[in-house]
């Protein structure tokens, strides 16, 4: 509350006048002599307290009169936190938040109940529409003034696993305002979660004519524990135990100990306690997960003991299968490259590849289709049918890695790659007579995570005409070191040196192993996608080879998620619910995808009132950039209410004062 003309409040000092008249002029306590008290009665008039009470009442009325007059002239006003409802014809929008956090307690039901109650403000010439929103906005009813239809739309709202987005709601409201061409009164029923705010406040902008009326269902931030994330490899090859790392987060919580349980296929595998710091995170690590072959459904649970148990479980999926084979073709005398490459490829417990070595002589009857990719290590010559087989293999989707050394340099053309070899460059081992990898294309999958190669010395490199291939690395003399070329459905990667620690000392550097791993994953088309998906994200369904093929997706309820047309055409699918999705691909591959709600919904912190006020003010053209404050709201003056009170008090004072004057007036008779 404030005053537009506060100086008039000085008039309150005039209240001293009636105070002086009534109270300071005290009744005489000095006895006045009178001839006889014979005709005075003590009982009747002994206590003049009720008389004093009348005088006090008159004093109060007169004091109130002065105060109210001063107040009225000071022109008081209030800024209401609640926006004013629209009078006249309007479009009422009932937007109900059905995001994941609304599953807490009975929030969604209360939101629906309040929305039904808000329908009472619908007049006969108004229109209304019911929306529900999470990450997307859904129209739950037509634009109508049929209260029954609107109620039905409200009751049809079900909780979702989506993350809420006020920005999406604002965009929808702007669209509605543009099409409605009348004032829009938007009632927002939500728990006003802070995480639903966009990073850019301008995305909340409301159009002129929109009155936002928030109905918050949460008064304070409730503490909440959740399993925020689970790190587990999506694919496991071979035997052995799998490491699982779970992150337990507390939002608005005190220090507490929580029991974390690892589940696999409905059975408890392991359980341990972790101490979560105040409003912090803790990690629980399990080293004894042994998933069986095939797809496995897993969970990590906590005993949170809070009011939001829906986020106490995190789903994951693990697929165990045999390692994939890689064919390493070399000449019989070169064992060093095989050794280094095999060691690098099969390093780690979860290597998805197994190396099969063969000499050029042994390639005659090898079926290449079973191999993830093939490595040609400094091959001088190979049987012609093998090169043809390789070419067909690559065109059909296979991958080939060719390492060039002294033997390969004798050729004029790189097999399968079909680019010319210009020369073979040699550098001495002493002094500065070696090359280094001066430039690396970190966007290339083979190089991206391999670190820097500054310390790697290249003594020999084969200069290859890059042609139409992509150069992913160059030596200091500009010699292309790593080339990548698409051939049909497959690709060929050429390394212009060897892996034998002779032409270079690459194998003894730390960057060699990740180079080999990444190259193997790249060539072997290993699915390195995240093991877990969030609700609202998209799952890619097909690549170029699978266009037109039918892909079947079963949602967590076991129902088909794609229509017949979508099954043959959809490139991706939006993961709308939490749970396990089964993807059946045309080549018979099956995929199990675990989908979890976005854990930002687990932070139950609510939007500050000031932010809500700014949001409301965006409809008036201010606050779009976060500027302006609560003072931008139009003040509501209420001086005329005060004047009404002055009138009432004045009448009461006159009546009571007249009563006293009548007594005095009779004295003059």
């Amino acid at each position, binding site marked *: 509350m404030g005053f537009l003309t506060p100086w008039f409040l000085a008039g309150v000092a005039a209240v001293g006048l009636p105070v002086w008249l009534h109270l300071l002029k005290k*009744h*005489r*306590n*000095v*006895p*006045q*002599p*009178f*001839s*006889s*008290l*014979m*005709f*005075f*009665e*003590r009982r*009747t*008039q*002994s206590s*003049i307290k009720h*008389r004093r009470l009348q005088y006090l009442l008159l004093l109060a009325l007169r004091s109130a009169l002065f105060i109210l007059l001063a107040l009225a002239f000071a022109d008081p006003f209030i800024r209401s936190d609640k926006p004013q409802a629209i009078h006249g014809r309007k479009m009422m929008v009932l937007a109900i938040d059905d995001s994941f956090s609304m599953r807490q307690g009975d929030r969604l039901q209360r939101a629906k109940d309040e929305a039904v109650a808000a329908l009472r403000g619908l007049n006969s010439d108004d229109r209304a529409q019911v929306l529900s929103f999470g990450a997307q906005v859904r129209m739950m009813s037509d634009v109508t003034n049929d209260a029954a239809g609107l109620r039905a739309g409200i009751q049809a709202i079900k909780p979702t696993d989506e993350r809420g987005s006020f920005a999406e709601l604002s965009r929808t409201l702007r669209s509605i305002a543009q099409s409605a061409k009348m004032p829009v009164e938007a009632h927002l029923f939500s728990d006003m979660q802070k995480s639903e705010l966009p990073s850019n406040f301008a995305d909340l902008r409301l159009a002129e004519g929109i009155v936002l009326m928030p109905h918050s269902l949460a008064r304070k931030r409730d503490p909440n524990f959740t399993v925020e994330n689970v790190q587990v490899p999506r694919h496991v090859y071979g035997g052995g135990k799998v490491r699982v790392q779970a992150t337990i987060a507390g939002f608005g919580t005190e220090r507490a100990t929580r029991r974390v349980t690892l589940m696999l296929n409905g059975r408890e595998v392991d359980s341990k306690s972790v101490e979560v710091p105040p409003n912090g995170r803790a990690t629980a690590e399990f080293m004894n997960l042994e998933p069986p072959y095939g797809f496995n459904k897993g969970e990590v649970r906590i005993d949170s003991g809070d009011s939001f148990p829906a986020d106490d479980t995190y789903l994951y999926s693990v697929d165990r299968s045999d390692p994939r084979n890689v064919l390493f073709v070399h000449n019989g005398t070169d064992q060093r490259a095989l050794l280094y490459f095999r060691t690098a490829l099969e390093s780690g417990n979860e290597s998805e590849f197994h190396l099969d070595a063969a000499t050029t002589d042994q390639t005659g009857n090898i079926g290449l289709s079973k191999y993830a990719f093939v490595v040609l290590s400094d091959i001088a010559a190979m049987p012609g049918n093998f090169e043809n087989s390789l070419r067909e293999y690559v065109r059909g989707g296979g991958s080939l890695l060719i390492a060039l050394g002294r033997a390969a340099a004798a050729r004029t053309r790189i097999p399968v790659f079909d680019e010319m070899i210009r020369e073979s460059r040699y550098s001495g081992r002493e002094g500065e007579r070696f090359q280094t990898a001066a430039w690396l294309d970190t966007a290339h999958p083979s190089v991206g995570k391999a670190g820097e190669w500054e310390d790697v010395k290249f003594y020999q490199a084969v200069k290859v005409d890059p042609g139409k291939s992509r150069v992913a690395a160059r030596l200091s003399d500009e010699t292309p070191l790593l080339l990548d070329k698409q051939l049909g459905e497959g690709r060929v990667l050429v390394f212009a040196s060897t892996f034998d620690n002779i032409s270079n000392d690459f194998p003894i550097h730390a960057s060699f192993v990740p180079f080999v791993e990444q190259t193997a994953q790249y060539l072997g088309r290993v699915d390195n996608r995240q093991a877990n998906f969030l609700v609202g994200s998209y799952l890619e369904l097909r690549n170029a080879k699978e266009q037109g093929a039918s892909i079947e997706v079963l949602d967590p309820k076991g129902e088909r998620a794609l229509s017949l047309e979508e099954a043959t055409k959809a490139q991706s699918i939006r993961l709308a619910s939490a749970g396990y999705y089964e993807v059946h691909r045309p080549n018979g591959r099956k995929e199990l995808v675990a989908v979890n709600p976005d854990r930002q919904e687990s932070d139950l912190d609510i939007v500050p009132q000031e932010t809500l006020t700014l949001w409301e003010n965006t409809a008036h053209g201010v606050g779009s950039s976060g500027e302006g404050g609560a003072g931008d709201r139009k003040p509501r003056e209420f001086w005329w209410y005060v004047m009404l009170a002055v009138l009432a008090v004045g009448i009461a004072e006159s009546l009571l004062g007249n009563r006293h004057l009548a*007594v*005095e007036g*009779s*004295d*003059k*008779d």
Partner: protein
Amino acid sequence: MLQRFLDPRVLASISGLDLVAKTVVDGFVAGLHRSPDFGFSQEFAEYRAYSQGDDLRHVDWNVFARTERCYLKRYRGETNSQLLILLDTSASMGYASQPVTKLDYARFVAASLCYMANGQRDAAGLIIFDEDVKNYVQPSTRQGQLFRLLHAIEKAEVGTHTDFTKPFIHFQNFLHRRGIVVVISDFYEQPEVIIRTVEPLRYHGNEVIMFHILDPQEIAPRFREPLLLEDMETQTKMEVSPEYANHEYRRRIDAHIEALRDQSKRAGMDYFLMDTSRPLDEGLREYLAVRQGRY
């Protein structure tokens, strides 16, 4: 000093009422009192021709029988009545809401009456009382009686509380001859008690006149705010409100005055209320005029 209570203006005013100068056979100033008995005086003075309107009781019928003419006998001699003034000097008589206290006013009245009686050679006496007899001046027509009366009036001071019963018993001893008894008081007692106490004075053939002296603030108090009042006789304190004083008190004092008037009339006594805010001559003139009209 003694002349203080004899305001020439007052005396001149009341002297015009044909009261003072006449010494009559009946021995009383016309209009002041009624002779209890004609032919009261013992000494024949003269005959006077009858004039229309004269009292036929004084016609000498023997002379009429002989002469067939009406003549009135006129007598001369000592005072044939007395005036006895009973002056209340209780504490309540000292009240005043204006410059003149009730006692002062009463003393003016008493002095005027004494002067009038002395002027017509009636014996005037004075008893000053409160709860007891404070002073007594025996009625007499001797030389210096007026001086003695005025002196006694001058010396009268405010006394204690009022008690009609006790002194009035003693009054019987002072009434040796019939005459007029004038009681000047504020009569703060129950009317029944007052009448019961005063009425016996009539049994000896006296005419009793009660002059009720009240201050205007006693008749119609004007309190603008609650006051703490103290009874001048009992020293009792009481907080009073203007509303009560302006309504209930007035009703009561009016009832008291009315009761006194009625009961004194029934008892054959005369009653007259005198407001000290009224000029003395005005009050006396009014009373004497009323009395003259009555008789």
